């Protein structure tokens, strides 16, 4: 047998973290929650796809040569957001029967004459007529111009300068940010609970006395937060990966770069938020000795998270408002508000580092002060420990 060696702090923290991961990964509630979250994401993508596929679609039959008409029809379709499929038909009779059978929404006959007709079942809806009219007009215009000797056409392209730029893309980014922030909220609550339960389990089973005979309280605390943090981050990345991957694969979003950027910022804020809330949850849990008492000590922190989520969602509607702006700096609230503001594109460059730094400072304070409370409260395995008692005990 090899001789026991002295363990560094890092080695101890790693040991604790590894135990947390291996215990939790086999835990039923963890597995179930992971599956549920992934199902939710997949479900919502499916829902989006279903809604989108209900969009405008049109099959247009053309009698005769379709080589020049097909691109024109398709281009016109794109302009009015109709997915056009062009079907080649042999003659008028075929066109009639195709329309009658519902094979096509409309059939264009005598397209190369001066009086083209659109055969439809009862009436042509606006977009169908617009598409066909536009295509035919464009073709005939270029033909006439060519006959007049104008071969290259210099048409000025209209530049679009919207008063509310990128509003549609913004919308998508904001929706993505809201989903991301809600996910972040859910995972923070879930893993906060895991951490709290773990701390109380160690206290109520008294195993903590054995643990503290081999390591310092902060090493135990760090190991737990790190272990569950890695697990939570892994889950977050998997879920977001599935979400973003699915959204891109099924074309739910227009600008892939935007949603990826939003996803990255949500993950980054998750890391910050996790360090902050996990410490608070662990420290709060260290004050009680029974799982039954957990609810009361976790309640204030949970409420803060709920408030943060509500503000975050509200910020989606009013990203530049005072409430959203101020709360996006406040440590603890910022992880749920800032990603939404970032997605809305209303954030000045200096604002993000400021919020991050404030958050880091707050986390450092919590870890320091909380570590003392944790150390002071851990060995008081009877009943509830008052915060102040734990603080003085930790100092003694």
């Amino acid at each position, binding site marked *: 047998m*090899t001789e*026991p060696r002295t363990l560094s702090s890092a080695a101890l923290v790693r*040991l604790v973290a590894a*135990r947390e991961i291996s215990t939790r990964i086999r835990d039923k509630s963890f597995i179930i929650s992971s599956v549920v979250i992934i199902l939710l994401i997949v479900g919502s993508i499916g829902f989006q796809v279903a809604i989108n596929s209900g969009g405008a679609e049109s099959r247009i039959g053309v009698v005769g040569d379709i080589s020049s008409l097909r691109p024109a029809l398709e281009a016109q379709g794109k302009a009015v957001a109709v997915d056009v499929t062009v079907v080649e038909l042999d003659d008028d009779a075929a066109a009639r029967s195709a329309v009658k059978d519902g094979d096509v929404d409309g059939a264009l006959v005598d397209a190369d004459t001066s009086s083209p007709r659109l055969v439809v079942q009862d009436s042509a809806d606006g977009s169908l007529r617009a598409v066909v009219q536009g295509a035919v007009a464009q073709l005939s215009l270029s033909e006439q111009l060519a006959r007049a000797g104008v071969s290259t056409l210099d048409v000025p392209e209209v530049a679009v300068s919207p008063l509310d730029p990128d509003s549609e893309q913004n919308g998508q980014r904001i929706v993505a940010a809201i989903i991301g922030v809600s996910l972040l909220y859910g995972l923070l609550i879930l893993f906060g609970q895991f951490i709290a339960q773990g701390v109380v389990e160690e206290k109520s089973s*008294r195993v903590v*006395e054995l643990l503290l*005979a*081999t390591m310092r309280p902060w090493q135990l605390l760090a190991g737990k937060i790190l272990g569950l943090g890695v697990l939570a981050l892994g889950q977050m990345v998997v879920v977001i990966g599935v979400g973003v991957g699915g959204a891109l694969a099924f074309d739910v979003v227009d600008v892939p770069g935007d949603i990826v950027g939003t996803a990255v910022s949500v993950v980054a804020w998750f890391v910050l938020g996790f360090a902050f809330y996990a410490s608070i949850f662990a420290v709060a849990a260290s004050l009680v000795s029974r799982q039954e008492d957990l609810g009361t000590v976790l309640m204030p922190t949970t409420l803060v998270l709920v408030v943060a989520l509500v503000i975050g969602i509200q910020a989606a509607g009013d990203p530049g408002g005072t409430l959203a702006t101020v709360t996006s700096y406040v440590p603890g609230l910022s992880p749920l508000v800032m990603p939404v503001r970032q997605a809305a594109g209303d954030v000045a460059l200096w604002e993000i580092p400021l919020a991050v730094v404030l958050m880091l400072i707050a986390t450092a304070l919590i870890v320091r002060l909380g570590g003392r409370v944790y150390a002071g409260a851990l060995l008081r395995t009877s009943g509830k420990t008052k915060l102040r008692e734990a603080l003085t005990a930790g100092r003694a």
Partner: protein
Amino acid sequence: MLEFDGLHKSFGTVRVLDGVGFAVAPGSMFGFCGSNGAGKTTTMRIAMGLVRADAGEVRWQGRELDQDVRRRIGYMPEERGLYPKMKVGEQVAYFAKLHGLAPAAAAKAADEWIGRLGLADRRGDAVEKLSLGNQQRVQLAAALVSRPDVLILDEPFSGLDPIGVDSLAEALLGQAREGVPVVFSSHQLDLVERLCDSVGILARGRMVATGPVEELRRREAGRLLRVVVPDADPHWADALPGVRVVSEQAGDTLLELAPGSDDQDVLAAALRTGRVSHFAWRQPTLVELFREAVSATPEEVAA
């Protein structure tokens, strides 16, 4: 040498330890006795760094205990503590790793101890599914698995049936034979008497007696002489000089001799009454020593 030196501790206004000190030689077993609330657990917790002493220190081989030295101590807390949902084998291996064993060695040592304590077939069970006695064995395995240099066990025998007591005693004696100093506290004084090379009796935060059991006996014995004279008159010893009759019942007489009086004079007097079936200095039991020591302490609990 494991030395506890001048430990003082107060919780608020309650003085729990008031200069507790004793030493345990390598390879010897030290029984730590005392009534409830005497401060045994606090003393052990100070050694394990779970409670900070107001004054005094605990040394192992001349070095004050720190985190590194403590990692070489096998500890069994009074309040048993294990992860209830963790499997026996994994749990013991985890504690081995926390004490510095490499993963492979930890798994091997865990297997070995679980087997040695008769839990081989429960290796894959969660601890909470075991009986209390078996959980106690797991606890012991967790304390022994890292081949500690020192063992500090708080009430290791409480809650065990006689067979469990015997196997635990055997395990502890085995450790002591390998040169490990073993300190354990117990209320079962007969057990302490049987197992320990030396004992310490703690009362109200002070060591009132400490040393090898034999020495304590000699020191604390006084001069009690038991003489059984079946044919004697009940008052046969009343008139002997320097002798006080403690008790007399059908010739079974317990006598306390004043310093300087000669036991041979008593023997002669006894022989004069007829047959003497028993004549010996009486060895006080540890229980009597304990009562004596604890009751002799002046009532001066700090206010």
